[in-house]
């Protein structure tokens, strides 16, 4: 991971981490509703 940070510009790394954090937040927060019976 240390190596990945060296290679990437800081702002790109920040963006990458933001995506990771949002993905984790979504996985925790998302409560799927059951669909109504389709025909």
């Amino acid at each position, binding site marked *: 991971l240390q*190596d*990945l940070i*060296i*290679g*990437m*510009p*800081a*702002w*790109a790394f920040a*963006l*990458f981490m933001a*995506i*990771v954090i*949002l*993905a*984790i937040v*979504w*996985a925790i927060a*998302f409560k*799927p*509703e*059951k*669909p*109504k*019976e*389709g*025909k």
Partner: protein
Amino acid sequence: VMGMSVAPEAHMTILGVVVAYFVIITILGVWAKRYVKGLKDWVIGDLPFPLMFGHMVATLYSGMALIGASGLNYRLGVSAFAELWPIACLLVVSTVFAPRLWRYARENNLMTLPDLYEHYFGGSRLMRVLAVIIVFITVVILLVAQWTAIGIGMSLILGVPYQVSVIVGTVIVVLYTFAGGIWSVAITDLVQFICFALAVIVIAAIAIPAFGGLEGILSELSKINPKLVTPLGERPPFVWPYIATQYAVLFLGIAAHPRMVHRVYSSKKLEYFKWLPLAGVLGFGIAFLLPKYVTMAARVAVEKGMMPNPPTSDWALPYFVYYLTNPVIAGLFLAALFAACMSTADTLLAMSAPLFTRDIYQRLVNPNVDEKKLLLWTRIFTVIIGVIAMVIAFSPPAIIPWIIWTSEGLAACTLGVSLLYMLYARRFVTKAGVAASIIAGLVVGLSFGYYDRFVASLPMNPFFVPLIVSAIVCPIVSALIRPKKQ
């Protein structure tokens, strides 16, 4: 490290691995026929999570785009890390579009994108026709581009004649798509993704230390050209107005691209979208980021005369792998790469055929057609479209690169905008508004795209203004033309 030319035995090993891979994937694809009982299984499946994941990732990024993205780091250095949008897009798809789209599709028994537009506006044939036109532009024509990519890749790297490569690619893809439709497509996608990811991890783990680690690579790059290690580039696409508009356009363009909408439909459960962004970051992040480091090493390798200069930056990664890694790993990587091109082709093919049978024939001409007959005809159309695209790809028209590059932009300013309104602002949109917005997006999008490519390049993503136009037209026309009674 072998030097400038690959030994004949190594070349044969690579070729052998590629051929073996193709045989296995064809058998696996045809075997998947067992999951297909009716048209709906063929078109959208009902895919379990691992298949959804592999399929979503393959849909997100074609083989050509994958090597093109890493090639940008070869050409422009670290500023090309700005291109993280495929990972971000998976997040947008799973959070903004998928949950509502999936529920709507399931509750109303939808199979295709034109189904959605027709159903949403109370059985509107006009909206179906409009959607069919957009799908045709963004999907069917793109198929030719994939055939071309397979042909160029196999002839350039493996020395197989171009037309033979195109024929081989077509036969494999048509064969297994014919048999298992989306099931075959998804299973081969998953296998391809696993092979690609494994090969890339091994290649990066060997290549990066061999060039003195990342610090070594970066210091070598800065000797070649100091701009290769500056965080923001000096020309498009990695200057900030470009990056910002690019993200806006691609978020909508990829999320609402017909192939992505179909992928959302094909999920077996809504719960899958909970984990998809995280799986995307972990899995796809590796397969997408690591090649970027490898191509920066490739730049150093070329500078030191260890491998030949690739014809364009797109080929930096395949060249590096072919010339400088173990033949078995190289074979696995190249096979997975060609398979990635094929996996975009098969997805497009599996969507193109129902466009003619389900969307046009069943819905607009003969609603009482027998379901079994329809499935048979969908399969036959797979062969017809595949072969037509193959023949066009023998001598690809010069317009093809433009089409590839336009497809997502046009999807953003037609389907992207209208889907967002339809899913989130139902009471504010009418049929007239959405139709006007799609037509405006298409016309303005084609004009801006043409201008940017053939007249003078614009200082931002050319589809950003068309996207805004389309987004303004929709509510205004909807407010002006209200149906008498909802």
